[in-house]
């Protein structure tokens, strides 16, 4: 089983030197993290980028996640669960950063058109998720957004999702259900806004003509 998330959290909060248990083998941990990095760096980076919408920050936090994995190596009891375990760490890193920096970018409903020069992160993400879908995702609560991204884009199974989110299987499923409904409503709002915008533009054209 994946380590108890509360135990992980406890370890995370401890000073670096105290997270290492007596039987912790640094060489083994290093090699293990090296392998983890080779296998999962792309998806972890993608998850953090999708959550945070900032390529540089996502890179920094990807690095941070692997360092934390190194520190918490002895908490992983089964290597076959390493992927979910790594997502758990990355998820916590992302939420911590969102809370700390309060990165909640409320993009205007017509963000692209009001923003003459969209930021680099917007360009990166908008190239990957359609505009209305991305904006709708930003409207929903962070944990719901994380659940949807992990389940749908990162292909985590139910148990992996629960592990990554640090909740029970039932709670993860309920969170996902709420997330789907939240996204549905947010998409409706986005699309209505676009329709309103297009209607207004049409009226302006008609007025001018």
């Amino acid at each position: 089983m994946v380590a108890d998330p509360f135990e992980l959290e406890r370890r995370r909060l401890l000073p670096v030197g105290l997270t290492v248990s007596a039987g912790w083998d640094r060489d083994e941990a290093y090699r293990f993290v090296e392998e983890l990095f080779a296998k999962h760096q792309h998806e972890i980076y993608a998850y953090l980028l999708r959550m945070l919408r900032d390529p540089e920050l996502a890179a920094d936090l990807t690095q941070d996640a692997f360092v934390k994995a190194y520190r918490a190596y002895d908490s992983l009891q089964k290597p076959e669960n390493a992927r979910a375990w790594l997502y758990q760490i990355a998820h916590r890193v992302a939420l911590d950063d969102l809370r700390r920096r309060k990165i909640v970018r409320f993009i205007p409903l017509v963000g692209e058109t009001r923003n003459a020069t969209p930021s680099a992160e917007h360009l990166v993400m908008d190239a990957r998720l359609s505009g209305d879908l991305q904006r709708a995702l930003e409207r929903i609560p962070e944990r719901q957004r994380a659940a949807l991204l992990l389940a749908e884009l990162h292909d985590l199974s139910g148990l992996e999702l629960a592990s990554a989110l640090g909740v029970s299987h039932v709670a993860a499923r309920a969170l996902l259900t709420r997330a789907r409904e939240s996204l549905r409503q947010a998409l409706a709002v986005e699309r209505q806004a676009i329709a309103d915008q297009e209607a207004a533009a049409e009226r302006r054209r008609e007025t001018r003509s």
Partner: protein
Amino acid sequence: MSGRLARGAGAAVHDRARDLAATRLDEPLPAADLAWLEDHLAACADCAAVAAEYDEQRLSLRAFRLDLPEPPRDLWARTAAALDAEGPGRSRRFGGWFPKGLPLAPVAGLMVVAIAVSVGLLNGRSLFPDSTINGDVPMPTPIDVAATEVQVLTRSEDGTVRVLTRHVDQMCPTGVDTCGISSTFDVTTTASISGSADLDGIISPTQDRMVVLDRGGGVGGVGGVYVVTMDAPSPTPAPTATPDPSASPDAVSPAPTTTPDPSAPAATPDPSAPATPDPSAPTTTPDPSAPATPDPSAPAATPDPSAPATPDPSAPAATPDPAASPGPTPDPAAEPTPSIAVSPAPDGALEIARDVIVVGGIAAYSLDGSHFAFSARPADGSVGPDVFVWTVGDAEARAVTSDHVSVFAGWLDGRLLVSRVADGNPETVLLDLADGSESALGEGRTWRPAIGPDGRTAAWWDGSVTFADGGVTPVPDMGRLVLAGWPASDANPQVLAAGRLTDWDVNWAADGTVLGVWTTTGKPGKVGSLSLYAVDPDSGRADLGNPLIDAAPAFDGFSLRSGRLAWTAPADDGGTTVQVAVWSGRDVNQLELQTEQGVKVVR
């Protein structure tokens, strides 16, 4: 009071329906819940709409699953430096990410996990049998399956095109794709066809010949279409699609087209040939006064009277575009037998079209194997695509449309499904080869329908179409790939994919019980995702919530026949793997075969 209670109870019923509609996307519902939900959705249009939005939302998200952003190149260097800063005691190593001397169990376990998860076969199931996750990770034991075979097409270093065949009678246990089964293929056919490495192969229903589509290898490339004789049948032939018993013996006679005409050397086009290639005009307009004359030395070269040699000049498809003289468009005022330029058989392969760009992923033999249809446009990019048909025994393929916005979508009862863009709107017509007449199909936007074997269900693009390749090739834009009753209607469609797709492909198993769906949002040649769904033969509904294969990485051109699914996927080392899957009920077994880069599965 009772009314208020009644409204509350009603709301709770709808809430439950919506919860279940969302939950079913994540795990199978108990049978009772599923039955209740389906009953409710059938009666409640609002809840059915919400459920459809959940489906669409999911597909929209999944369309981006494989579109992983690239992390910074120095990310490992930064991370390694941070790890170094964690403190002494670790012996620093140099080299790749897969050094020797690693503990076998965790690494092997991780690799198997990564492969299995990336293939995406394990939706809703345990990742591995228990015996594989502890200890020394024993190699799973292969299991016996009904014999089938997989063929792939590749271009060897000396330029010849090779057909590699692999008989498959063992697969890996459910949940794993590597289990010690040999990856070797046998070379069964070679053909000297010059051109690019961007190939596609479609085998005839009788398995005695194959059409090789050379797509030209990308921008600026020039391709062609060839017919190749398959070598002797394998000793353990795989089950194949049953040819139409009504097919003419001539139509399935042994590969007459593949015998080079000794009177027509490969490098010297026969001046009496119908479409004399002009070196300065690669896609020549055929001489309308000289309709295609089959090679008299070919025993089955007598044109089939029912062949599409003379499309109705009054039909819209045969209306010439006066601005497109270099293209494959004939002058219907004369003899409307359009054809692509062709040269005689070069070294064992009959070139039925040259200097063209093959458009779209759909090219297929008719059920009886007597005709082969594909879409192509002139390589010079002057105009867009038309539909071409090659009749077995003929020396060349002939255009059966001439509007330059038509693509082949499939065969239906011996007629051609042709999708085109008319007045900005995608539509599909049924083209009768016998007389060139067209009849409209479906309602509204119906583009490239893939109709099931029973003719009652189809998948098609319900959305807008844009133009790529310099504005000449129609490709999907925004919309939905839907599955619904046929002829097309808007009644309760299932959404297979939604959003901005750049390409898609749908194929049915011969018995109509499973449906393969490949979609991509990337550029041509980029990896897409492939799913396999069980289809209820009675309702025609696909079990989208429980795919047999769920969004597996796949290049374009998968093959679904003979009770197996085969596709190509990127390998970790940059090469290409061939993936084979067979299924029984909900159990799926898979096999991964390593090959060189760029192979294509023969369809």
